[in-house]
């Protein structure tokens, strides 16, 4: 019973994801968006890091 529930619900979930992926191109774009936003954030972070890294080599409290 439990194993049937797990296997059947897994199949249903996999089908839902797959069908959504196939049927809705906009979803594909939307679901991939976070990785691009994250990349932008990383780039911004890196830019600032590059600008500041040589100006601060001492810990804030002088450790």
């Amino acid at each position, binding site marked *: 019973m439990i194993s049937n529930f797990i296997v059947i619900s*897994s199949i249903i979930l996999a089908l839902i994801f797959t069908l959504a992926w196939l049927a809705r191109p*906009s979803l594909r774009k939307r679901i991939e*968006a976070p990785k691009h936003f994250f990349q932008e*954030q*990383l*780039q911004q972070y*890196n830019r600032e*890091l590059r600008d500041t890294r040589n100006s601060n080599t001492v810990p804030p409290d002088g450790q």
Partner: protein
Amino acid sequence: MAETADRAPVNRVDTQLVHAHGIAALVTLLIAVIFGIVVSLQFIFPDLTGGWLPLGWGRLRFAHTQGIMLGWLGNAFLAFLYHAVPVLTGYTVTSRNLGRWLFAIWNFAVMAPGWILVLSGVSQPLEWAEFPLVVDVFVVIALLLAAAQFLPPFFKRSLERLYVSSWYIIGALVFTLLAFPMGNIVPEFVPGAAGAAISGLWIHDAVGLFVTPLALAILYFVIPAATGRPIYSHFLSMLGFWGLFFWYPLNGTHHYVFSVIPMEAQLGAIAASALLGVVVVFVVANLMLSQRGAGLLPKEIGLRFVSMSVLFYLVVSVQGASQAQMALNKAVHFTDWVVGHSHLAMLGFATFAAIGGIIHAWQRIPWARYNGRALEWAYWLLTVGIWIMFIDLTLAGLVQAEIWQSGAPWLDSLRASEPYWIVRALTAIPVGGGFIMLLVGITTGPRGAGATAVSDELLRNPVKAIAPERVAVSAAVSDRDIRPPGRGLVMAYIVASVAGIGFFALSVSLLGIWPGRVLAEQSALMAPDFSLRPTDAAERGRRIYAREGCAYCHSQQIRYTAADTARFGAPTLAWETRFDYPHLMGTRRIGPDLSRASGTRTANWHYVHLFAPRTVVPLSLMPSYSSLFDGAPDKPRQEARDLVAYLESLGQAREIAWPDGDEKARAAAGDNKWALMSLDAPLLNAHTAKTRPRGDAPKLAKSDANELGAQLWKDNCAGCHGLDGRGDGPASAWLIPAPTNLTVRRYSRDYLADVLWNGVHNTSMPAWRDHSAANRAALVEVVRNFADIADTALPAPADLVLGKRVYAENCAECHGDTGNGNGFFAKELPIAPTNFGAEQPSQAESVRVLQLGIAGTSMAPWTDRLTEDEILAVSHYVRNFFDVSGEPAENNR
């Protein structure tokens, strides 16, 4: 409160807290690894710590695993979160002061007191939950603080901008907050197998809902950051996220396959384990594709650690899914295979991810010291060390599985494991060295050198640095594609939270609460009417057993497998564990299962075994518990008495219930084939050492395997009887009755075959049924060859007449009219009288026994009742009973 996103991301990262947790992580790691190294050395040198309880094997084992999970990985993850959360969200974490409190609680209210208490003997014997309840309270407080510290920044972002690392971080923080109290506190209040079902959930949740999500958050963070390119597929990553959070919690019961926990729950966990393996393949494929272009051995050291972590993750997950399947689980469960698996998970996959995360953050702390060369050394030492350890333990597990399945003597598996345990201990050199180099790498070298390790090109234009085919973010997606924040956003968070928490609730309901109710019903229906509760002494002994980690070497669950039933007896029924708070079912067998320890050994043997294990079992690996005695096994302190009382109680309730008491159980079992397997088992206690009535031993042919016999004697018998069979082995001074001096007696072959098959009841002489007929035959010849009684003087006829009269008047009531040990009083004696038809003492030995008696038996000294002449006469007379048929003529005197 979290600041707005106005501050530059670089300044939003609290580098001091990253640094503090990073250093704490490495310090706790080294301490935990030292514990682990000592534990591994104790497999080779069991008396390494001299029987001093605070450094006993069990306590160090507790400290080792808690140190790795909470000290090392906990601090490493916190260090990474202080770096990652501001970058992922654009907001600072909630509060620096909160961070200081969190740091202080994690290290000075959890780790330090946790270790001190565990080593002092205050602990709980639950896998991955060994710190005591008082420390658990502080862990929960710390987890609440962590949630307050790191979650608010995420809730300020649109859900649809939430990157997969963020999902994993949120999931880990929320789920651990739910799973930790369940796994650490509930089993203290839910007995036996029902508690084990909950405990099993936590064993997997600790890895699957705490360690794995945070490790994956690091992998998904560091790979795009180091390669300068987005991950291959965010869709696949989210599929993996939801798949892991759905299936991981449903895996827990696979730690108790073939146990008494309802098979339905076991099969559910097995199915979920297989499905989890499939999902991990997708996750790993995505992570590997995300590294394309970086090469098999990335130049950037942080990425290189992460890359190896991905490979470890693939191997450990496929292995985990496989070993949950019944066919493999039947063989490798309880073996070093599982130990290799857990080391690959925690020291391989999770540790390499954590190191990658720390290095990544370290490189971005402008003032942090950084020694790239040391980190290179750390990588190679750890990679080589972990792979060797994993392969070595996996092979050891297969060897142990083969021996256990074959029914060969338990000690064979120890002997066969020894080379593997030596190799495992030797891996301490590269692994320990690697961790030391890691500490050197982040505490030496110029300040800010980590930043220069990250190439200018990567910082300036990360995508071009590795991936020339950059896809512009703006071209890939625009804000128009994203649903605007507002009510929809709030609803999305609620839906995600309900789904996530629902998964957890589902797993607890299906694999924790439901099995618990079934087991409670089974207990109520099948338990005998009487209530054989543990005595106070046994209950105190149980706490000592738990405190010293005995359950980590000796399981207390006879599984529903043919091999377990043949070796240990009837599989454990639910009611047998109903007084176990918490359960002690165990997850590893280094020594044999102790579910049926009652009646298997004498108390005297237990005392000697606890005090000096190798005196009675020369190949034993058990540490000495001499601290429980006042200098000798015959001077046990109360704790030793309590512990032995507990050991003697194990299985006693079922023994008393058997076979009449099981009628009720049989009626309740109905057609439950698993319960019937236990009730129909041929032997309730099949422990090979258990002594049994004489008479049913298979005959043994004469053996000429002298070398085999000599080795068997040395490994199994010399501890008590001495190398030369004189009864003067290291344990002889403490055993009552003392081991027999075999040089002053000769025995018939059949008699020795019987003694080896059935043991000598109520003495320390166990049965040796697990040895093959060839082994036992070889031992019979060894014993017979010890006999040196040919020079015994012949008696005068008058002596025999006198001896006959004395014997009839004084000895026959026990030894029988014909000397066969079957006198009318024999059955009343705890230790059977000597059968002179099968055992012939030398005449001098006969006199000695008549004069001194045999301590610990019913044979008293006769000097106050018989004259010297009578003693001499009867000593000759009893020798005449010996059946000389089949004996060499020169010995028949």
